[in-house]
């Protein structure tokens, strides 16, 4: 995904729900992806939405 602020590509492993990347500000699991270049907090889709999007991508 690309950062919503600076437009740079955020490496895939900086993803949602990754324990090692969690900043601890979201209750009930990480829902943000912080851009390593500018620090902007990008929203990370929850599990259900991610599953729907993945299914749609597979279909496409």
């Amino acid at each position, binding site marked *: 995904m690309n950062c919503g602020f*600076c*437009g*740079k590509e955020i490496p895939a492993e900086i993803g949602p729900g990754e324990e090692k990347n969690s900043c601890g500000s979201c209750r009930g699991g990480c829902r943000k992806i912080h851009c390593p270049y500018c620090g*902007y907090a990008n929203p990370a889709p929850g599990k259900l939405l991610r599953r729907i999007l993945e299914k749609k991508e597979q279909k496409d």
Partner: protein
Amino acid sequence: MAEQNPLPKVVLVGNPNVGKSVLFNVLTGAYTTVSNYPGTSVEVSRGECEIFGVNYEILDTPGMYSIMPITEEERVARKILLAETPHAVLHVIDARNIERMLPMTLQLIEAGLPIILVVNILDEAKRLGMQINLQKLQQNLGVPVIGTVMRRKQGLAELQQAIADYASVPHKPFTYGRDLERDVTLTAALLKGEYRFSKRATSLLLMQKDTDVEQLVERGEPAENLAELMEVVRGIIFERRADLHLQISMERKKICKNMLADVVTQAEQADEPFAEKLSRWTINPWSGTPILLLVIYFGLYQFVGGFGAGTLVDFLEGSLFENYINPPVVDFVRSHVSAEWLFELLAGEYGLWTLGIRYAVALVLPIVGTFFLIFSLLEDTGYFPRLALLVDRVFKKIGLSGRAVIPMVLGFGCDTMATMVTRTLETVRERIIATILLSLAIPCSAQLGVILGLLSEVPGALAVWMISMLLIFLLVGFLASKVMPGEHPVFYMELPPLRLPQFRNVAVKTLTRMQSYFMEILPLFLFASFILWGLKMLGALEGIIGGLAPIVRAIGLPNEATSAFVFGFFRRDFGAAGLYDLQTNGLLTPTQLTVAAVTLTLFVPCIAQFLMMKKERGFQVSLSIFLFVSVLAFACGWLLNKILLTTGVLA
């Protein structure tokens, strides 16, 4: 058995999405392996190919924006360049963004690597009217330059020829400004060890505090030389602490611009593309400020305030909940629960349903939903980085830079998360000033929506609120920057292109933000309702309200308004919802409504924001901010009340 000679290596480097992987596949075909780079989870693809009878190993590195790494991907890509001894390094760039990508070519050439520049996606550049004189560029850079359209294999033969013929020759030096050149030359002269990158490039990386290169130098330098070298580097770093990164970046850009002056020609077009024009307008203060005001008027005032806080809340709260949902729920609880305390807990004045659920679902959710929709729309167009450039000059006056737009913009969504993001600001001073301003003058989305919705019904009230908030924001920022003197922060960033928002992106971002927000507020609203219910049952709530009442009366508000301030301590949006109840019950005059809105916006950060402040800034700083904000909020409320009553502006 004798060890086989390793194959000559060809390394592919470049920004993400420039066609590097396409080139890798074209060169290698099916013979590839993907494995994690040792000690990391970053994948590196390797393959082999034969060019004019010679076999080569091809390495596809992860995307990188500079040889000064920030992410793990970039670190791995740079490690490969430092560890391998390639026959050739193919720097793949997107022809359409040649000016933005060429500075990295300069870095790679400066590092002394055997570079071949691959200018890919030439067809798209031509379609946009760009003519690139590749021969001239090759002459200016002093390295082979090949133009390609790799998805159609155009330019493949020339590229293969260039790889086969590659003969490393000393690269052209690119000269920086006099001061920077002096420092680079001095440092490079002191380097005695042997390094993969040239001494000039190693010096520049050392001066930019690159820790990996520092370690290499510590290992590579003779002990008697190391101390003197590091002393000189530390001196340069200190002397240039304010703007070294910016200066290097700007000088590289300048070199590239000059180099491209006679290389790229843009075909005459009847009209400059509208996106380009709009992008320029958004940054220019004369046109950018009216555009910002239009965004605020239509995006926030009309859509969030008018549609979200007005139409949607009226429908959900005033019609659906009031007429169809609440009565059966309350009746059901009353008929099944005999204990008065339990009824109060579930469906009483401060009940979990009547206060917690109703506020969260019927009041806050439609407002934050409309806010996040407009927010995601603006985000997807690429407007925010332009806003950062637009306000940079004003922000400098208050000790911040355009970079602080990131937490400020996020603060309109949720101040708690924005407080955490202040850690991305460069200096401690900036972080403290941004934290104060966030806890004071930046309302969160729900609070903003309710206030816009309520004040838009009273002529003049919204203007008074906006002017008050802007003045307080600038005044407090200005004073804070004077109380905490320090260096002026430097801000620069590459602008991503302005684009039409994509429906899918906007929908996913809006839904994700709404879900995230709702998950956060619902338990807190229920918890706040529970505490308020407990305080009411114990008779303590009246005591707290009674204690706060003289202060609330002093700023000209009725006793009933005290509850909104008590709510506001739990959550800013909870307090704003309390204000909505007061107004819909007809308890406030226009002046009182405006004073209450200003005071509540400035009023203490909510519990979650306070805890985040404590985590980021420490207890002492957070407590000081908390006390300062509380006193200032009521002082401003008192002053505004006096001014409005004296002038009769909203009478």
